[in-house]
């Protein structure tokens, strides 16, 4: 071996040298130091061996560290996912579908148009009515605008009926909107809570009695306004068919229900979604359909529980 080493050294064959060293090193690890190796060779061998070991260790350390941090990062990611799944209070949850939001948008756009072009007729003595009619282009223009609003309102009314019948979501939502004895209990409970007699609030599901009231008030209003509106629009037909008094009833109902609906919207609906100290200056639910998780938990705790259960299940792979 020493001859081979000598030759390799003299040939400057580093590959051969390193092979020999490795062989020697492995023999050395097994406790066999080749007898032919000189003191000098043995020293060099040990140095090489030490250096190789150090490199190995360093690599191991690096690999281990990498794995450690990798693991750490992964765990953190999982935790974040977990947290997101559980939801934070400020997180937004979509509660109302685009389908519903679009219906609401058509509804309130046509209502605003109808109120702006209609109420000035009811309150014709007021200076602001004259001003409103004037800036909209006079009575001949507002008459047309009012009828455009009427057609839009009729359309969305009929479309909603179609939605409640033909769509799974519509059927489900309509079912959830039907008043039940629980709503009366909830209303009483809520009043008692307001008065301080009960310490806890009633637990609402998808629609509280307040929302159900809103929905059915609109239902009643739509039926009255659309029916009486068409009686007025096609006045000659209605008078010829049923008599002048039918037109008069239509006019009285149209005028009175218009005021009731406007006041209900301005006072009640605006309070609930705009001026309520917890909502001011207004929620964007009409636009994105979302409410915060905090509101969700507070205002619809039963629906929230249901949502959470299905949400957790749905997100499990």
């Amino acid at each position, binding site marked *: 071996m020493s001859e081979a080493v000598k030759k390799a050294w003299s040939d400057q064959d580093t590959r051969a040298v390193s092979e020999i060293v490795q062989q020697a090193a492995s023999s050395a690890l097994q406790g066999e130091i080749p007898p032919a190796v000189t003191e000098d060779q043995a020293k060099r061998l040990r140095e090489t061996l030490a250096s190789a070991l150090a490199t190995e260790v360093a690599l191991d350390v690096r690999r281990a560290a990498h794995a450690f941090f990798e693991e750490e990062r992964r765990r953190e990611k999982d935790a974040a996912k977990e947290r997101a799944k559980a939801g934070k*209070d*400020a997180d937004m949850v979509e509660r109302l579908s685009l389908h519903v939001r679009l219906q609401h948008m058509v509804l309130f756009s046509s209502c605003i148009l109808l109120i702006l072009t209609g109420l000035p*007729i009811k309150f*014709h003595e007021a200076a602001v009515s*004259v001003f409103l*009619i004037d800036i909209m282009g*006079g*009575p*001949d223009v507002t008459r047309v605008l009012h009828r455009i609003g009427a057609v839009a309102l009729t359309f969305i009314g009929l479309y909603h009926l179609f939605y409640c019948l033909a769509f799974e979501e519509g059927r489900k939502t309509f079912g959830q909107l039907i008043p039940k004895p629980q709503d009366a209990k909830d209303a009483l409970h809520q*009043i008692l*809570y*307001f*008065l*301080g007699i009960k310490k*806890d*609030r009633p*637990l609402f599901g998808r629609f509280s009695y307040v929302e159900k009231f809103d929905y059915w008030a609109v239902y009643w209003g739509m039926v009255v306004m659309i029916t009486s509106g068409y009686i007025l629009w096609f*006045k*000659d037909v209605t*008078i*010829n*068919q*049923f*008599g*002048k*008094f*039918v*037109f*008069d*009833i239509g*006019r*009285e*109902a149209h005028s*009175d*229900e218009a*005021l*009731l609906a406007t*006041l*209900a919207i301005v*006072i*009640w609906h605006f*309070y609930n979604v705009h001026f*309520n*100290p*917890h909502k*001011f200056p207004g929620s964007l639910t009409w636009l994105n359909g979302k409410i915060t998780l*905090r509101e969700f938990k*507070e205002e619809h*705790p039963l629906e929230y529980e249901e949502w959470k259960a299905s949400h957790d299940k749905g997100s499990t792979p």
Partner: protein
Amino acid sequence: MTGTSMLRLRRILWAGLVAAAFATAAYAQEDVRCLSCHGKPGFRKTLPSGQVLELFVDPNLLRLSVHKDKHCVDCHADVSEVPHPTTPQPVNCRRCHYNGNTSGAPQLAKYLEFERSVHGKALAAGNPKAPTCQDCHGGHFILPGSDLRSRVFRTNIPQVCGTCHLKIFAEYEASIHGKALAKGNPDAPVCTSCHGEHNIEKPEEKTSTVNPGHVANTCAKCHDKVVIMEKYGVNAEQVATYEESFHGIANEFGVLKAANCASCHTAHDILPPSDPLSSVNPANIPKTCGKCHPGANANFANGRIHIDAKDKSAGIVYWVALGFKILTLSTLAGLFIHIGLDLYRKIRNHQKAGGAKPGAPSSEIQP
């Protein structure tokens, strides 16, 4: 001219002169000259057209008129020679009747109103049928409008206007207003009550009292006065109920094609609904409404036209209005109470929580 007639004329003239001398010192010599011809009854001229021009002037009537102190040439200022070399022109009343005159005429400028009126415009345009002052006020026997004998006394006005507006006069005579006037009713409206006097304008003019936009106001001069209407059993609310109707509101906002009082009740031959000839008699309602609502049938009369929903006379409409009133008030009361209680609870919770910012996420609203 015979001697006896000359004698008689002289006697008359002398008698007139003496009477005038006692009556007024202004009865002057030149009037005698005029009356030497014009004071003869039957003094007239036949124009080439065949029209007979009555030229007799009864001096006694002039002496009884508001112009008793005036002489012939005060008004007929273009007359200076007898016989007249040129045809005397119609009298121009504006010589005296203007604001600031010194001749003792009333300090009024009615002629300015007249100039802006439909009659004044027609006259200025050269319409030979256009009336002048004299056509209404008369020539020599002009009396104040308060004098029963005056042509422009209230009860005489329809005849005066009817001189030209014959068909309308006939309609008016047959109307409830005309009949009431004939009975001497002091409340009955005459032509000028609605149309104005010197300032009469076409209905098309925006400032006319009978413009579609002003008809309701004009009728309301009497028809919303309970004091007047209760005498005749007419509802004084008719103007108010019209103003609340779609017709009235459209009219108020300037849609003049919308019906006004006269659209249904007519302008001149207004009759009570009980009269079969009335445009608002139930039998005639389809025709009247049909003017604007083509195809209107008898059902247009099925229900009241002037409706006051606050009055029980409105029938079922009254009950509908009452129902909605109750519904509205009770709903709003409920909503206000609910909102009030909600706010009360929020404030109490807020106080208990030690004044944390309301609306902020906090435990105070947690169940």
